[in-house]
């Protein structure tokens, strides 16, 4: 994703979670939106901050960083949240 929403998401996740790996994808077309609609984004976040946290808590950290976007234009967000150790042993989504 390279639209304005994806860019905002990218910079906020970088600032909040200091990820060692970060991908932001626009998947709106898979959910009934036109290409570039930026209503459905997918993120892959690899961060040390997720260590020791259950999936629900990891997702809540991502949600917290994107509070404004989720309250506005972003209707759905697919999240892959892994620690650097998990990502190293299996770098696939």
């Amino acid at each position, binding site marked *: 994703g390279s639209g304005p929403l994806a860019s905002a998401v990218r910079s906020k996740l970088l600032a909040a979670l200091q990820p060692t790996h970060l991908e932001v994808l626009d*998947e709106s077309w*898979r*959910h*009934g939106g036109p290409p570039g609609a930026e209503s*459905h984004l997918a993120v892959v976040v690899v961060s040390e901050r997720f260590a020791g946290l259950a*999936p*629900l808590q990891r*997702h*809540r950290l991502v*949600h917290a960083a994107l*509070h404004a976007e*989720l*309250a506005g234009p972003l*209707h*759905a*967000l*697919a*999240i*892959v949240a892994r620690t650097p150790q998990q990502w190293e042993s299996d770098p696939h989504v």
Partner: protein
Amino acid sequence: GGSGSREAVERLVRAHPVVVFMKGSPAQPLCGFSNAVVQILRLHGVEDYNAHDVLQDPDLRQGIKDYSNWPTIPQVYLNGEFVGGCDILLQMHQNGDLVEELKKLGIRS
């Protein structure tokens, strides 16, 4: 209050062992993420569950987000407990946790 009040949402969440808040219906999901939840439940033989279409009820759509402090739809509840959205359910499907959780509810998959 209306359908989005904390009391109303809590009643819905506790009305059945498996409750899903989604876009569309299990017969006709209107979003890929909601569809994924329906397909995962189907894979586990869970046909008997309560599904609520939030697109039919904006008050409920906001109410369920406030109730769970979770900003997106779909949302899955097992035994009144919030479990997560589509990604977490998929993860639980893949690592076997979902079978265990359903077993606790007396559902064999």
